[in-house]
């Protein structure tokens, strides 16, 4: 493998990992607080759609991003109401939301774009950070990325700091591990969990926007294609830790990117196997490579006093 090809491979891995990474971190926070959002997929799709429409209609990708973020919040709120207030099964309600969003975005996409299907959708700008971006060969292939990716990394670092050093951080962890303790300390478990689901929605909306106006400037029907489920897998793979989730997302990204490198290198592997690779890796990982996983004690269970 040449350096150049390797650089492309790295850049490609990062780009393919980014949606999982962004959505995964949000989901991790929410799961830490005890809520499993199967609806990540649907939230991502909503954002991908709304950001594309917004960017296309206003001509400004920043506005598109904002519209994407705003559009997801009602979905996240619906998930929060279902899983906290109405104490619905979190898997069912999540799957229900995914089905609904898939139908609704397809319908709306056709209503809006129907005839103008080749309409140009403005996308978010790319940046090349100084120093890193100037490394020969690797610099632009690896580090010249959509700014949202760098913003995402900053957000992830911020999330890690909040979890570690602030009262909100310990409250979130306690809400998943021992909600009774949270309740009895005078905080509201429900409010914390609502907040975390909305945060997961926010991160999922960045992820979805990255899909549509970040890297590829287009929306296609059902374009998330299971990325939301892979994001959940990376949370479990990452043992509900930030570092682990980031690592898992990158691994899945790399496994997908490998699919394009091997043929270019003339290595013949059944295509089905290559496509299966991220899932296979994820299964191997959750199935023992990473050791016993200890989920937050009350993950998936609505809290009642």
């Amino acid at each position, binding site marked *: 493998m040449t350096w150049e090809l390797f650089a492309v491979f790295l850049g490609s891995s990062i780009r393919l990992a980014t949606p999982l990474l962004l959505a995964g971190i949000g989901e991790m926070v929410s799961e830490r607080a005890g809520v499993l959002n199967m609806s990540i997929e649907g939230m991502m799709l909503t954002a991908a759609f709304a950001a594309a429409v917004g960017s296309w209609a206003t001509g400004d990708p920043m506005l598109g991003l904002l519209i994407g973020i705003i559009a997801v919040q009602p979905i996240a709120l619906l998930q929060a109401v279902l899983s906290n207030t109405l104490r619905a099964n979190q898997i069912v309600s999540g799957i229900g939301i995914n089905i609904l969003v898939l139908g609704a975005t397809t319908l709306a996409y056709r209503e809006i774009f129907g005839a103008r299907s080749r309409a140009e959708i403005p996308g978010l700008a790319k940046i090349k950070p100084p120093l890193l971006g100037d490394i020969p060969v690797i610099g632009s292939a690896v580090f010249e990325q959509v700014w949202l990716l760098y913003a995402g990394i900053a957000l992830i670092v911020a999330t890690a700091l909040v979890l570690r050093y602030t009262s909100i951080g310990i409250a979130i962890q306690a809400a998943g591990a021992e909600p009774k303790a949270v*309740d009895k300390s005078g905080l509201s478990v429900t409010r914390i969990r609502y907040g975390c689901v909305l945060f997961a929605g926010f991160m999922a909306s960045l992820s979805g926007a990255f899909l549509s106006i970040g890297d590829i400037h287009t929306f296609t029907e059902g374009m998330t294609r299971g990325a939301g489920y892979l994001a959940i897998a990376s949370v479990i793979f990452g043992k509900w830790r930030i570092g682990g989730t980031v690592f898992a997302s990158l691994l899945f990204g790399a496994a997908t990117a490998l699919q394009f490198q091997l043929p270019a290198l003339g290595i013949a592997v059944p295509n089905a196997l290559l496509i299966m690779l991220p899932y296979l890796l994820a299964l191997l990982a959750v199935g023992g490579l990473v050791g016993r996983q200890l989920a937050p004690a009350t993950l998936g269970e609505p809290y009642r006093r």
Partner: protein
Amino acid sequence: MNMASAPAEIVAEPLLSLSAITKRFGNFTALSDVSLDIRPGEIHCILGENGAGKSTLCNLIFGVHRPDGGSMRYRGASFQPSGPADSLAQGIAMVHQHFSLVPDMSVVDNVLLGRQRGLLNRAECARQLEKLAVDYGLPLDPFAKIEDLSVGERQRVEIVKCLIRDPSLFVLDEPTAVLLPDEIAALLDVCHRVASSGRAVVLVTHKLAEIKKIADRVTVLRGGRVVATSDKPAAEIDALVRAMIQGNVDTLDQSAASILGLEPVKHIGHGTENDNTPKTKVEALQIDGLTVRDYQGVTRLDNFTLTVDRGEIVGVAGVEGNGQSELTAVLAGMMTPSEGKIYLGDINLTAKSPKEITAAGVGIVPEDRHAVGCVTGMSLAENIYLNRLDEFTRFGFLQRSALEREAAALMQRFDVRARGPGALFSSLSGGNQQKAVLAREITLPNLTCLVAAQPTRGLDVGAVAAVYSHIRAACERGVAILLVSSELDELLTVADRIVVLYRGRIMGSCVADPDRREAIGAMMAGQPQ
């Protein structure tokens, strides 16, 4: 003392007053028409059988539940907390009957939870903890993780969590059930300090000795109603107990009365005391060089060797967390020993499955009855025969009517009180749950050995008495009994012989003689005698 009448003349404006409080869960009334006053400066004890409504009462005060009827006044104003936040804001703090700590967080983080906004100042909190430790004699390592602490230390964290808020009303729901004598003394001291400065303490306990020692006033609950109050509890303790169990104290098992503080501790043993015929020793349970290491490789039980004869009760004493849990888990087949052997007569039980151990005739009353002893979401009958379902199976079908018939008979024999054999296990009070687990294990057809861990924890007087008399009866039948308990009084009263565990090793052993209390206490603290 006034039996179920209006409270005595008002001494001072009450800090908290409850009038005609009613609380229902579904169509079950947990509290009805409860009125009582908590006066500033007093330690107010609540006494009552399991299920009498004590915890419910505390939870109402703390805002966890809301009353269905009646009203509360606090510091002269109407008080309607809609959640713990309201009560905390008013200076009410509570230690709950069951821990509510986050196991994988540190002590400081648990204390800080809900107390600080924004950035955490852990160092400052650690300093505060140190100050509290000095003031109240409650030492803690602020950066230790909860899951690494002993039960007693965890309870200390719960108490410190409250004290750091400097509460004006301090509610403690059975805080002493899991504490050692020293720790209990320290806690009672804390209560005194809190009460002495014009604040008040509500203390729920089953231990009459504690009531005698520190209660200023006592309210007795029975079936959700106030059945007695007393301003001179120490003098009226017998009458209070009578009101609580609605029976005669004399009918209680002697040893129960003894360990609950009605009488001075004396060894009662199991045989009739004037039976002097020497028994032939038949070894039932032999434990030889048992060593247990946990998943991190830490040795939890170290070369434990012990023989229990038929008809003998051997007590295992020790501060909680010194290997008792591992010992029972290994004996129950829930944990594999690293080294050593376990025999029952000639049957090798080392590393056998729970099923084989049960089949060999070993009954286990586990220390954590909710986690290991029962399935609370199933019916009483199903729980009683969970380990013998095969006996109620025909062609794979469950003979439910036979199961319930047998269970009903057993309920009668063991005085398990419930709506019926079909009642949900979680609807039983703690004492009745424990009696049911005991019934299941003690009625194994070929019972030769019974391992009972903390069998009376959290039980009321009547239930404790019932448990003792069943254990004693089994012993009479020639069952070898291993009684693991952190209540030294319990062992001194009931056991024949006591071995002391310290850091997984046997520190020493002796006959169960109340006069050797000091020596045993020293061994528990790690000093060989």
